[in-house]
């Protein structure tokens, strides 16, 4: 039956020639992810994806925090599309879920209220002198990876299975709310049983975990965590999800949105510090990956290249289970071998393990 509901929500995703719109905050949460996406598409899959230096943030963070009015964000989005058509592309791909939600929302607003589209055209022309055309297809980067999951599986160096026992890893997949909950039709699998990440996991040998709070929000919500008074709610949401998934002992969590992956990861630190409660199978916390990192691991990229040392919950236990070769000593050495500093030990990562690496430095 779950498969039936997935077939109701199909989506046409372009095969090539993408215009790439980066996320404004994923760089500092998971630095390696966006670069990995470009490498996977260009180097491994040989697709044409244009990373235009001129494009800007979609200002979604401001829009959702009531700082940026609707007309302004419409004009910025129009400018993005203008850049895309100027660069000769028609398939727009966004890296961040929230901006994917923004673009879908604005496109459907223009459809429903054509007069707003006219006004945006005038604003854009007045502001930048550019004309814009609506993209032929709009997709999120996880859609693209989902679209090519079989090709990636074909090139996979390793599968999402325990290197020793060979049984599939138990993976919790969490879909950003702006992906399918606002416009169910715009997400693969709809809002009840989103399949975009589940599809990747299953085709790469992992096993999805269906826990009760699967559809619950991770607590990111700008107005939730930005204002300190509400931050307690934000952590409570993540805690509710972690509590609910704990009995299933998942090996790692994969998310397709900057906020979810960062929050599910960082809040484990806060919860551990505040309540002393950790959720991993062996009490070390559950590592959180982005789908690009997961794809990168499957394709054999080096974890530190993917920027996995920036995670709050150490990924070493997961890497060991996956049988990924990594050099522990170069964990905190930057691109040119420069020491980039080591974070203080945290309850969630259990200092004992931390201690081993100190010897080398």
């Amino acid at each position, binding site marked *: *039956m*779950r498969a039936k*509901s997935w077939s109701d929500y199909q989506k046409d995703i372009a095969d090539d020639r993408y215009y790439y719109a980066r996320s404004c905050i994923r760089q500092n949460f998971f630095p390696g992810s966006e670069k990995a996406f470009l490498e996977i598409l260009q180097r491994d899959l040989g697709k044409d994806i244009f990373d235009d230096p001129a494009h800007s943030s979609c200002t979604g963070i401001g829009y959702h925090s009531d700082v940026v009015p609707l007309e302004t964000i419409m004009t910025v989005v129009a400018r993005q599309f203008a850049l895309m058509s100027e660069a000769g592309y028609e398939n727009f791909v966004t890296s961040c879920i929230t901006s994917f939600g923004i673009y879908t929302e604005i496109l459907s607003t223009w459809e429903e209220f054509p007069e707003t589209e006219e006004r945006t055209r005038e604003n854009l022309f007045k502001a930048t002198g550019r004309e814009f055309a609506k993209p032929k297809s709009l997709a999120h980067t996880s859609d693209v990876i989902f679209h090519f999951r079989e090709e990636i599986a074909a090139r996979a160096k390793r599968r999402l299975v325990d290197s020793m026992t060979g049984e599939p890893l138990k993976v919790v997949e969490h879909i950003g709310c702006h992906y399918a909950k606002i416009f169910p039709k715009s997400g693969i699998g*709809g809002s*009840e*049983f989103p399949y975009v990440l589940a599809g990747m996991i299953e085709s790469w040998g992992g096993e999805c975990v*269906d*826990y*009760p*709070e*699967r*559809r619950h929000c991770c607590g990111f919500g700008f107005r939730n965590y930005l204002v300190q008074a509400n931050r307690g709610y934000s952590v409570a949401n993540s805690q509710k999800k972690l509590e609910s998934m704990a*009995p*299933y002992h998942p090996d790692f969590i994969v998310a397709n949105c900057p906020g979810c992956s960062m929050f599910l990861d960082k809040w484990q630190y806060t919860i551990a510090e505040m309540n002393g409660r950790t959720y991993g199978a062996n009490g070390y916390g559950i590592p959180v990956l982005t789908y690009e990192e997961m794809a990168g691991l499957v394709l054999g990229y080096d974890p530190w290249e993917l920027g996995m040392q920036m995670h709050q919950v150490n990924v070493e236990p997961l890497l060991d289970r996956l049988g990924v070769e990594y050099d522990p000593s170069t964990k905190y050495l930057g691109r040119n071998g420069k020491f980039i500093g080591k974070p203080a030990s945290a309850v969630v990562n259990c200092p004992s393990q931390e201690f081993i690496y100190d010897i080398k430095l």
Partner: protein
Amino acid sequence: MERVIVIGGGVAGMKAALDLRRRGFEVTLLEKSRHLGGKVRKWHCLFPTFTSAAEVLGGLKAEVADSDIEVRLEAEVVSFDNRSVTLASGEKLACGAVVLATGFTLFDARVKEEYGYGIYDNVITSADLEEMFRNGRVALRNGERPRRVAFLHCVGSRDEKVCQRHCSKVCCVTGVKQAIEVKKLFPEADVFNFYMDIRMFGPGYEEMYREAQLSHNIHFVRGRISEASPTIDGRLQIKAEDTLTGRPLKMSVDMLVLLVGMRSNDDNVHLAEQAGVPLAPNGFFAPKDMFAGNVCSPRKGVFYAGAITAPKSIGEVLNEGSAVADAVTEYLS
């Protein structure tokens, strides 16, 4: 004497056919499926007196059997008007008047995806539960006895999201009846009924509701379940708001019973167009008027009986069965 064709072999159709026959008309009873009885064949016992459905049905079937009503099973009607009925097999039957008694369709709970009907094991509908009662064996999918059962009222009724605005009125009392039956089978179990409003419209219904609370200790929680999801031990976690305390509520149950409502048949639209009769906004056939002409259609010679015009209890349906016989007699005389 004139010939009258009754479309639909449920309790409404059978009662109409019998009464028409008693008035001397030559009656043809068409039934799409392989046997008469319609939905009541699937029920175990009926509210508010827990009389067994088979008993009520048996009586009617016996009468139809030993009357000389021409019964044609597996006869699907493609179109009809006030003087003739065309079957799927192409055959065209002429007649003096047509009585439409094709009843209703149970709402498909699959559409309410968030409750996981058809996805999780122990999410069943009131029809499934009634089936279990009829087979005399109520148990979870793994054969164990349920320790905690939740009933959810208004599934597919009074719900904009599935375009079913009307109230199907009989599912509330069915929910209370089934809750009592579950409590009788599993006295140690806890039974929770989640409702928006409890509508005990008929005679003896409110007493049954009160008895459910007092002597069976059934918990009635005012709040609509938002979603169901599986827990690690194979049970179901449901979430709702206990609106009387204004607090969200979460619990895991062994079995979730969805009280599905009555929906209009899918072929109503097509049939109505053919016959040139209007449909009500909720998709049921619209009678001439709600008072004097509630069994006649605006078009002369086309009559309605039973749940074809609106959700009804079996008592009301039987009343309409005999009422339509009067209307037809008056029309044809």
